[in-house]
């Protein structure tokens, strides 16, 4: 109902073209400011991902412990260890994990982690300081056997190791460590004993600790002391620097292909419609692509190779949208009712005629791509959402430009030519300034 009300009113979109041109100009200007600010502060105007920048790898060899059941929790743990890593002063290194994959199976199963260097950290610092730190942190935290401690009363507790057999030397080591912990925390240990049960075939699974005196500090620190670093259960292998997946050759090739596609589309539109329509369509296309870039720049979304796919998706969509409007313009221009109409009037009329279609089509396409974004978020597969977001922005920009921008440019071009002979010099200059601004 609302749409049909709007339809009956006089439509004066093209006349307000200054507003339509200022909105995207502001967005793009904001993006440029953000890029300059981030460029000065961090040296990275855009948040480029590993596909373009390369990064580092580490391979966490978990062997048979890595199964489909444990995979998710191991991956979460690895990510947490790497991303929360700090230097001696407790400052976070800000290393970001970009992908984790399972590699191999059975004995050779491992988690292959790719991560990006933090902003402004040199390769040498990564190699000498951060990468070894990551490796040893993973070694300590991922391959640790952490027992459960149950306090029977304030002075007796049982430490249970699951699926882990204590050999005598390890037990003696633990005993010494517990004694020294007690003396550090003003507690007194009366006995540390191995518990043997019938179900255990080899070694010991649990130990009991009896205390003459207990302390809070002892209780709190015990878990760290009785955790065993299990070097033999796996290994974090320090990987190396890896190059970008998208080489500069590949990127240049992609840009050339896209440029050629745009030129050929321009030729086709100029042939089927008018040169002015072709130019207006390409301006709309550039608007959509720049808006997507602006979105990535303003919100610092990581740009990976999937962004190229998002860009060419919008390239196809934007042209499609614009052509539908220009088809109506072409038809209305030929119509007898518009023999003496100005281009502005025809453009307004054509936008009005195609508005319902534009809204319905944009809505349906938006539904499909929004589902990808929502599902990505719901399943914690955020790379899908990151892929869908710029497409959603491009869709909205494409709808906007096909309604507000390309018909206005076409009308401006047409009416300027028509008026030129009659118009005085002042107006001509004014118009030219306007075009230059646009």
């Amino acid at each position, binding site marked *: 109902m609302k749409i049909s009300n709007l339809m009956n009113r006089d439509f004066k979109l093209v006349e307000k073209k200054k507003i339509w041109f200022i909105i995207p100009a502001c967005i793009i200007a904001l993006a440029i400011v953000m890029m300059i600010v981030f460029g000065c502060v961090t040296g990275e105007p855009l948040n480029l991902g590993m596909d373009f920048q390369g990064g580092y790898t580490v391979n966490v060899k978990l062997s048979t412990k890595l199964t489909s059941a444990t995979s998710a929790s191991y991956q979460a743990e690895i990510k947490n260890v790497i991303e929360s890593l700090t230097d001696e002063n407790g400052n976070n290194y800000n290393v970001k994990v970009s992908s984790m994959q399972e590699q191999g199976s059975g004995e050779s199963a491992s988690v292959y982690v790719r991560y990006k260097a933090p902003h402004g950290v040199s390769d040498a610092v990564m190699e000498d300081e951060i990468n070894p730190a990551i490796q040893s942190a993973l070694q300590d935290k991922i391959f640790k056997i952490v027992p459960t401690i149950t306090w029977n009363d304030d002075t007796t507790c049982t430490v249970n190791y699951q699926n882990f057999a204590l050999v005598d030397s390890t037990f003696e080591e633990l005993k010494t460590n517990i004694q020294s912990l007690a003396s550090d925390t003003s507690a007194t240990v009366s006995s540390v004993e191995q518990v043997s049960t019938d179900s255990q075939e080899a070694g010991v699974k649990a130990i009991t600790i009896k205390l003459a005196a207990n302390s809070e500090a002892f209780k709190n620190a015990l878990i760290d002391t009785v955790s065993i670093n299990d070097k033999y259960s796996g290994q974090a292998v320090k990987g190396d620097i890896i190059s970008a997946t998208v080489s500069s050759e590949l990127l240049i090739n992609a840009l050339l292909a896209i440029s050629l596609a745009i030129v050929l589309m321009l030729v086709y539109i100029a042939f089927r419609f008018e040169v002015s329509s072709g130019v207006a369509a390409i301006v709309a296309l550039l608007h959509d692509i720049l808006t997507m870039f602006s979105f990535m720049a303003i919100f610092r979304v990581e740009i990976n190779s999937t962004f190229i796919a998002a860009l060419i998706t919008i390239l196809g969509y934007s042209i499609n949208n614009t052509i*539908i409007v220009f088809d109506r313009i072409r038809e209305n221009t030929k119509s007898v009712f518009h023999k003496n109409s100005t281009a502005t009037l025809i453009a307004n009329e054509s936008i009005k005629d195609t508005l319902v279609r534009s809204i319905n089509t944009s809505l349906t396409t938006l539904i499909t791509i929004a*589902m990808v974004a929502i599902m990505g978020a719901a*399943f914690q597969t955020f790379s899908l959402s990151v892929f869908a977001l710029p497409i959603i922005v491009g869709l909205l920009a494409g709808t906007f430009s096909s309604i507000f921008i390309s018909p206005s440019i076409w009308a401006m071009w047409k009416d300027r030519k028509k008026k030129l002979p009659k118009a005085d010099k002042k107006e001509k200059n004014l118009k030219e300034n306007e075009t230059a601004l646009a």
Partner: protein
Amino acid sequence: MKKKSSIIKLSIIGVLTIIGLIMSFCTFNFGLTTFKSFGSAIKLGLDLKGGVYAVYEMDGSEDTTNLSSRMAGTRTRLENMLTSKGYTEATVVREGSTRLRVEVPDVDDPGNIFDIIGKPAELSFVLDSTGEIVLTGKNVLSAEATYDNGEPVVALSLDSAGTEAFAKATSENIGQTMSIKSTVDGDETTISSPKINSAITNGRAVINGMGSIEAAQTLADQITSGQFEVKLSLLESSTISPTLGEKALLCGIIAGVVGLALVMAFLIVRYRMLGVVASIALLLYADLMLLFLAILPWVQLTLPGIAGIILSIGMAVDANVIIYERIKDEFRNGKSMLASSHAGFKKATKAIIDSNVTTIIAAVVLLIFGTGSIQGFAIALLVGIILSLFTSMLVTRKLVKYFIAIMPDKPSWFSLTRSKDYENLKASESVDPEEVKTKEEKTTLEGEVAHENI
């Protein structure tokens, strides 16, 4: 009568769509043979399904001058080789300074990676009389397996230095034998020792004695690998899980199904019976899309490919929306239902063709000049657009005709309404209803004639 035949035709299309849907998603066992559903037969990329990886390391003995640029050159050659074998989605990255990591999607057995890349072979042409090496693999521009007089051979084309050396050696040693040797992993084998019958000056050499075309292909690949600027040996290889995570594929499927259902619901609410038509056409489109993605060689579906499909679904829906809005316009201004549908289709055709052709131009350019995942996107988009044109211009047109024939007096079921101007005009004219009917029939006939002419 017309109503009956329309119902029959409609049922046939409906049944075909449902059969298509079943074949798209269900896998059957017929005794020993298995029918794989279209959906499961689609080859998937590294990002959605994973595959195998192999890490190659430069031989320790190799000298390290210009290492960086030679590694980069080797990487490019490997990439081109994988692409030429149809693995457009494979990736090659440098790891450290002396290693290359190759990932190939949708291959389960890591051993297969050797079949793809081939063990690098060093080729040499040696004069038996003097032991002089005339040519090496470095002089080879390209090596391909082909047939020569019905015998499988490897045809080599040589660079200018190679051509010169080969011409000199063959012209000076007519009647002698020349051995062609290849070295793989340090093992030298003599492939053949042909007699030189005449001087060969055109820069083309042929290796015969291959036995089979497969053997010829293997050698050709090995020679190509042997040309790499850096000698590589395999360090490790294994399977690898999807880059986007285990759940990416499931996520994509659910998003696709829910998205499609929501779109159909929207179309039905907005256009009623016409929306039902669009939904049938969309389902048919989805069936065909899955079928083509499954049977076309070189299609490897990745995230960009999914974007291509989403775009083509958008365009398929768009074509329907454009047509329906035109039909509504025509009906609003007083045409009969059938005449409105004919006129609507006719007027929408130009816009749909122009927008689709423009996108086809973009897709073809990206397919020819793009690389890797851009090609994957282009294939998905191209197939999608052609199918969307087929379903919107042919299937929808027929379906609308059948639906109108079944329900000829229920325009509101198609969300078709007359404009107020028309209603007023009709009331003021207060013409004989019979006359209006004949008028309408006349337009219908005209519409049909116009339709036949397209």
